[in-house]
């Protein structure tokens, strides 16, 4: 009988180092809040973190906190609280779980990092709508709650070709944040410091790309599921030397795996792409499920979202604007399709798993016929899983697994 055998996941040795980095990061912010300095800025995942760091802020990323709420499977304790105050169950469940957790006065940080009681209170909230409108509403709620200033960048969406006018308008908006940030931080803007930060972000991004590209090897030493964990420093510490050092260590370990032919999924038979948000509360379960089917989900749009090739320290504002606008999520379907086609070739993929994430239409690309078009153009199999990033009320375990299993059976018969 084909019992589901427990699959042992291969441990990445650098995990220990990453855990320490993340702990230091949160403790440093907690200390700063308690001491009143340095100031803390909240930033969206692709907000102008480089500028904030260069201005001397410590930077908290609520989306990272949202992902923690999902991964610890506590999100569903909190989402209803935000729903009850008027934030619909249909909108971003990072927003609803994060706001709900705040309303309840709880955070997974206190369990993970003893001594930390709250999320770090912000001195300023800085968003970028390149990914969605929800972030602006999310930060708006906290701005009213904490009575702290909110500022941000409103960018273009569905961009086909990124032109000079796109870049100029975003660059101007980033530059216009400077006076306000000077006032809040009490620090004068220093171009050199921004250039250094952009340089470090570039280096971090290049290393992160190399880490992800080790998965192009057969067998792949690294999976999407590993990526969702190990992208932590690239998300919260880009623009710092700590992140750069971490990815050097991780890359060395993965290259060693490649040299030795070590597979992340023992007996890798199928190579898959994950399109869409992770289902945070089911990461481990899905990772084991795919591994048991000998399928390595090894590349994704999601982990790639922290690759910014366009950073250029010589032109910090313009290149930040360009990097943020070149991002997959900001682009038109034509551009997105070209991108995925390249990924399928580069990573030698057999199929694409689309995650239709109920509360994040922005990171869901299966609703306008894309799977069907890619099936035609690439002769690649696709499957769509219905779920959500955090709200497990939207996820049916049995349906999803049957779909995945049937998908693999389809690949077996191809």
């Amino acid at each position, binding site marked *: *009988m084909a019992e589901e055998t427990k699959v042992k996941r291969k441990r990445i040795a650098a995990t220990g180092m990453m855990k320490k980095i993340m702990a230091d990061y949160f403790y440093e912010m907690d200390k700063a809040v308690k001491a009143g300095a340095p100031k803390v800025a909240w930033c969206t995942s692709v907000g102008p973190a480089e500028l904030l760091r260069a201005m001397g802020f410590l930077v908290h990323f609520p989306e990272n906190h949202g992902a923690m709420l999902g991964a610890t499977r506590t999100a569903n304790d909190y989402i209803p609280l935000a729903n009850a105050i008027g934030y619909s169950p249909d909108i971003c469940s990072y927003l609803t779980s994060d706001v709900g957790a705040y309303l309840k006065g709880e955070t997974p940080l206190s369990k993970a990092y003893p001594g930390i009681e709250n999320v770090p209170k912000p001195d300023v909230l800085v968003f970028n709508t390149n990914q969605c409108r929800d972030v602006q509403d999310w930060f708006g709620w906290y701005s009213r709650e904490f009575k702290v200033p909110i500022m941000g960048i409103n960018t273009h969406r569905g961009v086909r070709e990124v032109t000079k006018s796109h870049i100029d308008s975003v660059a101007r908006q980033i530059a216009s944040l400077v006076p306000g940030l000077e006032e809040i931080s009490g620090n004068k803007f220093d171009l050199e410091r921004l250039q250094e930060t952009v340089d470090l972000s570039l280096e971090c991004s290049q290393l992160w790309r190399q880490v992800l590209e080790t998965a192009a090897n057969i067998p792949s030493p690294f999976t999407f599921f590993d990526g969702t964990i190990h992208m932590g420093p690239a998300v919260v510490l880009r623009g710092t030397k700590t992140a750069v050092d971490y990815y050097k260590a991780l890359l060395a370990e993965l290259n060693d795996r490649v040299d030795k032919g070590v597979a992340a999924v023992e007996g890798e038979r199928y190579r898959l792409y994950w399109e869409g948000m992770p289902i945070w509360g089911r990461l481990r379960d899905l990772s084991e499920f795919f591994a048991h089917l000998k399928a390595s989900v090894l590349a994704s749009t999601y982990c790639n979202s922290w690759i910014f090739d366009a950073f250029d320290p010589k032109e910090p504002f313009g290149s930040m604007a360009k990097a943020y606008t070149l991002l997959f999520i900001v682009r038109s379907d034509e551009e997105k399709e070209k991108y995925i086609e390249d990924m399928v070739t580069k990573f030698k993929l057999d199929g694409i798993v689309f995650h239709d994430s109920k509360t994040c239409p922005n990171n869901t690309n299966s609703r306008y016929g894309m799977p069907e078009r890619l099936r035609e153009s690439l002769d690649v199999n696709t499957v769509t899983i*219905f779920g959500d990033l955090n709200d497990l009320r939207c996820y049916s375990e049995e*349906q999803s697994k*049957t779909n995945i299993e*049937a998908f693999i059976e389809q690949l077996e018969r191809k």
Partner: protein
Amino acid sequence: MVLGIDVGASATKGILLNQDRQVVSFYVRDSGVDFKQAAEDTRMNCMSTAGIAEDDIKYTIASGYGRRSVSFADDIKTEISCHARGGYFHHPKACTIVDIGGQDSKVIRVDDAGKPISFKMNRKCAAGTGAFLVETAARLSIHLEQMEGLARGAQKEIELGSFCTVFTKTEILARISEGACAEDIARGVFGSVIKRIIEMDPLTGDVVMTGGVIAHNPFLGEMFEKKLNRKLFVPEKPQFAGALGAALFALEQSGG
């Protein structure tokens, strides 16, 4: 001899096949709440009808919602692959197989060789499944088995527009208060199931229909044909297509 067993959310079906791919015996019962028991009972009944012993079964494949509960199976396969296989066995051409089950519906496209090209399962709710019929029958205070006769005897089809089963029940209430009769509403309920399926896929080429809903409600098939304006291919025992597919896989995997 091989056994295919399909433990669905509503019914458990079993089929014994001989080496020549002929059906030796079959059995169906409610799945109930104990899938293990339902599977065991189905196997025993298939064996006793065929007059064979356990050792005579060379290979067993379990499918369906409760496939993992079948401890005596040699392997498992999803109901999607099994319905594709079973549907194609009846209609060995490139075709679209539509299975309307108790708790979900599937649309599977297979190529000339019977290989699945793509498949879709309905989303999370009951719309377009047998569960929708159960719910609406309760609203109409009739037994599920009466639905077919009522729908067949209707003068017209009442339009029911909602995706949601609860909303549909409210719609039914509204139609009742407007004086609509049970027959016309029953036909509307069938019409709603059909709409939900048509929304899933363009249903190109020959359409083969399987599953318990069509087995118990052949009139739904007739309505479907009218809507599609095409002949529908329904196997003799549509409810057993998944079990048959499982048995065919079992034959293949046992080297038969």
